[in-house]
């Protein structure tokens, strides 16, 4: 009877809760805190940015670079649209890279898989199940040749995301291939992530003992400074720290203190800061609170400039520049109602661009589900392109500069960052904070707090603790699977190489590498020579590890073959 009274065209059979509707109409935001927990006022006014403070802000392109490192920012050049790629075999990764270039990507960006970052060859007994699952595994020169085949290395800027101590190997493999193909190393452009210190917090502790992390990190910096002067030899990774669950000011404070470990090591080796600092770069997260993220970036630029000039005595302006790439926050994305992630990513990308980013990776919407599918990857690139070509954000440098709120929040974040740095000093500095596991405890505490905020609805995440729906049964654009056949073929080729290479030459070169490491020399020249003789990632890392008193195999499963 009741059903018959409903209009025939009604498409919504479920009863609507009109009280809930009324409550939503009058609903106010439940929190006025920023994502990182800073309390902010209802409105900001001229008193929040007194004119005398503007000298501490400065124009874009002027010290202390709060407003950007270039005077005209994106009018000079768009940011680099660089999507991270790494999946299956070197061939699979090569193919996806070319696809995204074809779709308008403007920078190549390949990421290592877990075995490679750990310093294991593809045929290591523990690696075989995991080759290509989260990136690409480069075991030898031929893998690097396959990944870079028919791509003009003098025309592209290639970002090689190897973060662990294995970054030395990546540089050696890339340089060996470039030399073989006749390129002048001095003219090559690109980036290697090379931040082994932070990578201990990403599950790679066996591959990243602290002393070796600083030593090999600095080897890459030194080698590039001498031989590849256009190459950005590190992107100190603040992003991964943020992904542990820490706040925006913690991200910058901890990241900068890690960066200083490398700079101090370069100075200890006899370099002046102006000899090398122009190629120092960072990798930053952009989370969902737009104003806080922009302010964080602005504060970071000012702090870095002051640190380089006042503490390290950098004279060149380019040594004072905080140059950074942004990776939108993977940990902010959820598999529940996955298409919503496209919107989250777009806001985060907007924050990056309003903050004056140099290079941007937008996560694909399927980040919390699987590696990006072809369509997911292309869509993420499209998000960047809509931002770059449609919205007008490129017209004006630092468009939020002078906003009473943003300038005030920039100042507050700067204060917070200094406060956190002082806390680390109190526990004995960053090296000690790492060794004593003080930093581990901070990460654990913060990660737990982030989950409780969601459990208690102190932070809202649509689809997770509000506006929830039933569990999805399918991912809208499908699921990326790893091509087992191509990975298997890659593993077989590694085994074949180890049998067929010139054993005398290989052994001579690998022992020369170990001797150089024993003498505490820069290991990269010997690694290039060893790579050319067919030495593999695991063997070269093993040789260096042995020289420093660590087991050949970080997992202690296999023995040195030399």
């Amino acid at each position, binding site marked *: 009877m009741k059903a018959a009274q409903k209009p025939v065209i009604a498409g919504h059979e479920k009863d609507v809760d009109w009280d809930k509707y009324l409550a939503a109409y009058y609903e106010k935001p439940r929190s006025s805190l920023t994502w990182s927990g800073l309390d902010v006022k209802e409105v900001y006014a001229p008193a929040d940015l007194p004119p005398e403070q503007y000298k501490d802000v400065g124009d874009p392109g002027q010290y202390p670079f709060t407003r950007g490192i270039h005077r005209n920012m994106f009018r000079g050049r768009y940011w680099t649209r660089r999507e991270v790629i790494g999946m299956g075999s070197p061939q699979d990764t090569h193919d996806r890279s070319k696809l995204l270039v074809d779709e308008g990507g403007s920078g190549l960006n390949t990421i290592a898989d877990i075995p490679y970052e750990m310093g294991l060859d593809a045929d290591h007994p523990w690696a075989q199940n*995991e080759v290509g699952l989260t990136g690409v595994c480069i075991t030898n020169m031929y893998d690097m040749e396959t990944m870079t085949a028919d791509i003009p290395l003098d025309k592209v800027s290639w970002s090689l995301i190897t973060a662990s101590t294995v970054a030395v190997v990546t540089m050696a493999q890339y340089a060996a291939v470039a030399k073989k193909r006749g390129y002048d190393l001095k003219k090559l452009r690109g980036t290697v992530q090379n931040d082994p210190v932070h990578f201990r917090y990403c*599950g790679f502790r066996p591959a990243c003992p602290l002393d070796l992390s600083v030593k090999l990190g600095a080897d890459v910096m030194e080698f590039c400074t001498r031989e590849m002067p256009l190459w950005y030899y590190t992107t100190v990774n603040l992003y991964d720290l943020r992904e542990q669950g820490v706040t925006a000011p913690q991200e910058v404070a901890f990241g900068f203190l890690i960066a200083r470990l490398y700079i101090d090591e370069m100075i200890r080796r006899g370099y002046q800061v102006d000899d090398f600092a122009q190629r120092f770069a960072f990798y930053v997260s952009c989370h969902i609170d737009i104003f806080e993220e922009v302010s964080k970036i602005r504060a970071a630029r000012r702090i870095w400039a002051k640190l380089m000039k006042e503490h390290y005595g950098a004279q060149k302006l380019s040594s004072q520049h905080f140059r950074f790439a942004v990776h939108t926050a993977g940990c902010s994305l959820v*598999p529940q109602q996955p298409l919503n992630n496209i919107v989250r990513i777009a806001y985060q990308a907007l924050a990056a661009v309003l903050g004056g980013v140099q290079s941007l990776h937008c996560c694909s919407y399927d980040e*919390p589900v699987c590696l990006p599918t072809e369509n997911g990857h292309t869509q993420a690139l499209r998000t960047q392109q809509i931002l770059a070509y449609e919205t007008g954000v490129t017209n004006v440098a630092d468009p939020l500069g002078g906003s009473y709120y943003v300038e005030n929040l920039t100042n507050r974040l700067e204060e917070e960052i200094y406060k956190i740095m002082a806390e680390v000093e109190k526990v004995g500095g960053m090296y000690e904070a790492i060794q004593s596991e003080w930093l581990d405890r901070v990460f*654990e505490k913060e990660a737990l707090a982030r989950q409780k905020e969601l459990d208690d609805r102190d932070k809202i995440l649509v689809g997770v603790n509000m506006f929830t729906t039933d569990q999805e049964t*399918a991912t809208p654009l499908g699921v990326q699977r*790893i091509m087992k056949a191509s990975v298997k073929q890659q593993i077989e080729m590694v085994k074949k190489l180890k049998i067929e290479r010139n054993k005398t030459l290989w052994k001579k070169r690998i022992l020369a590498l170990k001797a150089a490491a024993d003498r505490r020399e820069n290991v990269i020249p010997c690694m290039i020579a060893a790579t050319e003789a067919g030495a593999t990632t695991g063997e070269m890392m093993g040789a260096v590890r042995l020289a420093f008193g660590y087991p050949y195999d970080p997992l202690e499963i296999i023995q040195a073959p030399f």
Partner: protein
Amino acid sequence: MKKEKENKDRKIKVLITKVGLDGHDRGAKVVASLLKEAGMEVIYLGMYLMPKDVVDAAIDEDVDVIGLSLLSGGHLVFTPLVVEEMKKGGFDDVLLIVGGIIPSEDIPTLKAMGVHAVFPAGSLTEPIVTYIRNHVRP
């Protein structure tokens, strides 16, 4: 009556672990802490463990629940290996739970392999605690 009361008061024993080389351990550690706060006894095994290591530890500790955390796309590789070890060890009557980066398409596959429940990224604590309390062996 007495037996029922014992069950209610008995601490549920949970093993949380990573398996293989996957080092994304933020989630596993958070879940371990939260289950502890919910009154369970939790053993967090850590990283770089093979399926046999996981099941041996589960048998030694005689846990009620095994929780695997997988975020690197290895869930369809490692889960069946863990199930196989559980069967070999005659330890397949405990709850097996998987969490992490799991495509929804793979949830039925994992359940067919012998997984009792899957909690993907973005799960809240309460449903995990409730599920364990309601489904753990008496």
